[in-house]
């Protein structure tokens, strides 16, 4: 049993606490209140709705279409958290409990089927103890969308429903736990607003972590798209390596993540990372604005689902062009912006020894 929370106190230090006028503190605080906390609340709400939907669907009071819609809504709010993964969600293996990607060996199908074979009378506790592979949205998606499962068949529905409702419950609990840690006194929101605290010695550390989370997430979007495009497999498209391929939600998820990254850049009230650039740096700010716009607009023109786009040359060319734009967002934010702001992104973590 791990002693938790572990004892850590902050020593009164010879540092002057930041003044409210400090731009880094202002930005961190504004993003905490205006972008991050609302996104975590939205995720918790959609996770609650997912849990309710799973129960209603399994009780026969909701149809499959509505259940699938509740899932897609939760996927979108989860995707919006990708560039905002600082604090509790980035810790304790929690993100894996929401989404299992990459799933190169189709572990989701194997583990769901094995679990149901072993535990036909599946309980909530069984799922809480089980691997992260079966606890999250990827397993939920498998049940609701996989071509091999026919939920209109009563036997199949009763076979999968205990797991479906248990995942819904797990997601609701997990999101409640994370949101609780954001809202607690001295919790994550507070730690992004008042410095020093036990997490951040000063505001620039918090801003650096926000930028790092955002840049890592954009890199993650590139990896997700790149895996499907076959960039790691000699150009051979890998549609089943895409995230949320069963529900055709890959591009919608990408769009939600990208929009959230842009919100972190702009802020809710023009008080995001962008506001840290001075007049002499407005040219860079303009280029980043422009690159977000181009990338966002291009994504909007991709009308077909990812699987279809991967299947023909025109589609692959469109996706590659989108990938290149995403790459430019990544380079502008992770390269030029980080340098101008004097932020180190993973000096040791990325290039360790």
């Amino acid at each position: 049993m791990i002693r938790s929370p572990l004892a850590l106190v902050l020593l009164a230090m010879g540092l002057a606490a930041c003044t409210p006028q400090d731009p880094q503190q202002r930005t961190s605080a504004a993003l905490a209140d205006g972008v991050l906390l609302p996104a975590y609340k939205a995720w918790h709400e959609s996770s609650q709705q997912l849990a309710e939907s799973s129960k209603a669907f399994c009780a026969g009071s909701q149809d499959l279409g509505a259940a699938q819609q509740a899932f897609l809504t939760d996927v979108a709010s989860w995707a919006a958290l990708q560039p905002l993964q600082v604090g509790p969600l980035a810790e304790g293996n929690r993100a894996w409990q929401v989404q299992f990607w990459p799933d190169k060996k189709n572990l989701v199908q194997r583990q769901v089927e094995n679990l149901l074979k072993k535990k036909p009378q599946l309980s909530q506790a069984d799922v809480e103890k089980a691997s992260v592979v079966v606890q999250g949205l990827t397993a939920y998606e498998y049940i609701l969308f996989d071509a091999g499962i026919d939920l209109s068949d009563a036997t199949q529905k009763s076979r999968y429903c205990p797991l479906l409702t248990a995942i819904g419950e797990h997601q609701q609990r997990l999101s409640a736990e994370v949101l609780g840690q954001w809202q607690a006194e001295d919790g994550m929101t507070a730690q992004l607003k008042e410095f020093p605290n036990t997490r951040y010695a000063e505001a620039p550390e918090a801003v650096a972590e926000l930028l790092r989370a955002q840049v890592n997430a954009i890199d993650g979007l590139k990896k997700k798209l790149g895996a499907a495009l076959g960039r790691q497999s000699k150009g051979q498209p890998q549609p089943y390596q895409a995230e949320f391929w069963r529900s055709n939600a890959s591009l919608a998820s990408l769009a939600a993540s990208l929009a959230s990254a842009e919100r972190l850049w702009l802020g809710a009230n023009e008080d995001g990372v962008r506001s840290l650039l001075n007049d002499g740096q407005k040219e860079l700010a303009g280029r980043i604005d422009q690159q977000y716009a181009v990338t966002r607009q291009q994504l909007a023109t991709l009308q077909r689902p990812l699987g279809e786009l991967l299947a023909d040359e025109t589609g692959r060319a469109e996706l590659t062009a989108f990938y290149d734009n995403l790459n430019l967002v990544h380079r502008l934010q992770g390269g030029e912006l980080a340098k101008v702001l004097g932020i180190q992104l993973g000096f040791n973590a990325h290039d360790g020894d």
Partner: protein
Amino acid sequence: MKRRAFLGLSGLALAAGAFGGWKLIDHGPQPLLLSARDDADGHHYAVGYRLDGSKAFATRVAERCHDVVPHPTLPLAVFVGRRPSRESYLVDTRDGRLLQTLASPADRHFYGHGVFHQDGEWFYSTENDTRDAGRGVLGVYRLQGERLQRVAENSTHGIGPHQLLWMPGGEELVVANGGIRTEADSRVMMNLDAMEPSLVLMRRDGTLISKEQLPQQMNSVRHLAVAADGTVVSGQQYEGDPQDAVPLLAIKRPGQPFQPFPLGEAQRMAMHQYTASLAIHDELRLLGLTAPRGNRFFIWDLDSAALLLDAPLPDCAGVGAVADGFVVTSGQGRCRLYDCRGEKIAVRPLELPAGLWDNHLRLA
């Protein structure tokens, strides 16, 4: 200028050789923190700072360094080139003067770690024999005046050696053979399907005492800490699947086999299959570990293996024991002092420059 430096140091070396009560290093009350560091433009430095934030020196060097090896008695330290560097730097820690750029032979490169023998005359470093890529070599150097001279080499009895440290008594070495083959001028891993990591105990004349392995072939044994009672702890970096559960910390207590350190599942997962620097606090019997990919710093009770601290620290890098507890540097944020004397561990940011600190630190 060169000649004066030479004379000055020969004098010191002579005095050290004579021993007899010379107090050669007087750093005052504040220990000197030695580390490799970069600036924002990517230039590399060998630096020394007092813990109160005052800079002793920052000497620009051509290649990025990794660990630092202070001389046991003289105000000297070797900043060891990070793999696949073929340069290390002998620096005067009083003022940062670069005394020697130590070159490896053409078919060897440094792995970033070394040790001075307790008599101060011999320096040993882990090296790669690039003619037989990955074959582990223990380079043997002799300190003569202001210069280190390579005089011999031995095998490390393994592949891709990384950190090495002295066992208590200072005559036997423990070596972390990472098990990964890389070529000259390259960091590309050539043998992920056939890695051979091992923990080796050997005498400094090269004789093998023992060689032990963990079961997971892709679990690279990289970094070490040795307690005064001879307990060895190793930190691993796992090259296999991100989801595999493997021992990222292992321990060899005196007289016992090399085995996994009982690590909590939450901590193991938080490390993202990657550990960086370890330090043991001998008086308090504590183990500190940085995990920069997980952005976390950990402290355990060395004897009971109880977890005492699991704290966020962005891109945490080097860790070293000081009287109060541990000093930890960061590639990204402020350096911290974790005061472990009280019932609760207390953290205090240090007045050192923030960020760009490389993986290891030494306190001299």
